[in-house]
């Protein structure tokens, strides 16, 4: 399938991802503006209004009181509930952090043989949940004051980087003073290692995003209860492997089954398969 064909077949998702940037990232941050207007808040509308990480840190760190009245906590709950019924559509169709790394990866003319891809979903899953458990462990260490330290939640935050890059594009000086070694390393691992040098450009989403892990856990439960998911029909499959090549999250196993712990319901496989072996829908 040529690049033009891929864009044509997935045009609605790519448009949705562009829209996601304007919905969540300041200075546009349309959703944050709507929330600020509704709540009468004078806060600057940015990606931080709907932080992906802090509420998860509060939850596992025993700071439940911080969750009360938190717009970001409501947002995370909504994303997880949506993933239960429809699959992780936020990750696949709206997330600005994932869309930027995926876009950078797709726009870089690097042959696939120079990109990394873990073919065994068991290893990808193991690394993904392992990093998540580590994130929870640190939240607990910080939250329950097992060791004396400040929160580590924002130390490697790609949302902060994306917001500051957007600030830089609109000429805000804070975008220059923000940068430090930690953020540069995060930028490198997000867009270069996780983006350009990983097939599909979703390396950061796969290994470091706690919201992505929660969404996929919710999706896995929803799938078992018959909610929307990508299903595979072995009778129609002709073993062309186009599905595996097109999947940005390496969710398709060697037997072509879709792993719900990794799938972001982007529907790249359903559009890439010439034999219609993949289908998105409800099924028991």
């Amino acid at each position, binding site marked *: 399938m040529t690049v033009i064909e891929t864009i044509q077949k997935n045009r609605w998702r790519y448009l949705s991802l562009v829209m996601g940037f304007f919905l969540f990232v300041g200075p546009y941050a349309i959703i944050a503006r709507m929330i600020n207007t509704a709540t009468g808040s004078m806060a600057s509308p940015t990606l931080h209004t709907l932080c992906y990480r802090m509420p998860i840190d509060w939850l596992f760190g025993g700071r439940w009181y911080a969750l009360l009245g938190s717009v970001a906590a409501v947002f995370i709950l909504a994303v997880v509930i949506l993933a239960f019924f429809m699959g992780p559509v936020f990750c696949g169709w709206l997330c600005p952090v994932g869309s930027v790394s995926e876009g950078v990866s797709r726009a870089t003319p690097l042959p696939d043989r120079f990109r990394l891809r873990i073919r065994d979903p068991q*290893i990808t899953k193991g690394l993904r949940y392992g990093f998540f458990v580590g994130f929870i462990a640190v939240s607990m260490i910080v939250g329950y004051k097992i060791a004396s330290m400040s929160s580590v939640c924002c*130390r490697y935050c790609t949302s902060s980087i994306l917001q500051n890059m957007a600030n830089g594009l609109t000429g805000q000086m804070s975008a220059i003073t923000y940068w430090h070694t930690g953020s540069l390393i995060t930028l490198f691992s997000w867009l270069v290692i996780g983006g350009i040098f990983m097939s599909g450009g979703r390396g950061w989403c796969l290994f470091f995003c706690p919201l992505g892990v929660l969404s996929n856990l919710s999706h896995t439960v929803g799938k078992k209860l018959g909610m929307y998911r990508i299903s595979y029909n072995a009778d129609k499959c002709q073993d062309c492997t186009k599905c595996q090549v097109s999947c940005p999250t390496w969710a398709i196993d060697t037997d072509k089954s879709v792993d719900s712990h990794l799938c972001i319901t982007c529907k790249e496989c359903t559009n890439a398969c010439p034999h219609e072996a993949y289908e998105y829908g409800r099924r028991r």
Partner: protein
Amino acid sequence: MMPVIPGKERKGLWAFVIASATTPLALIIPTSCGAACGVCPVPGGCFALPAIVVLIVALRSRLQEMGTRILGVIR
């Protein structure tokens, strides 16, 4: 009798154990040395390393293959 974990699951379990063991270390090291407050010349620099090392170990065979190809192109 010890439960036998099949090959594929065993690999996944190892990946999980290694990643879960290194991430807290990766996050705690910079906190204890006071990174992100400006004292350290490489604030946050050390915390990303164990996570990157885990990825490199997990993908080492693919990296070797890529390195061979890149060298082939250069030569």
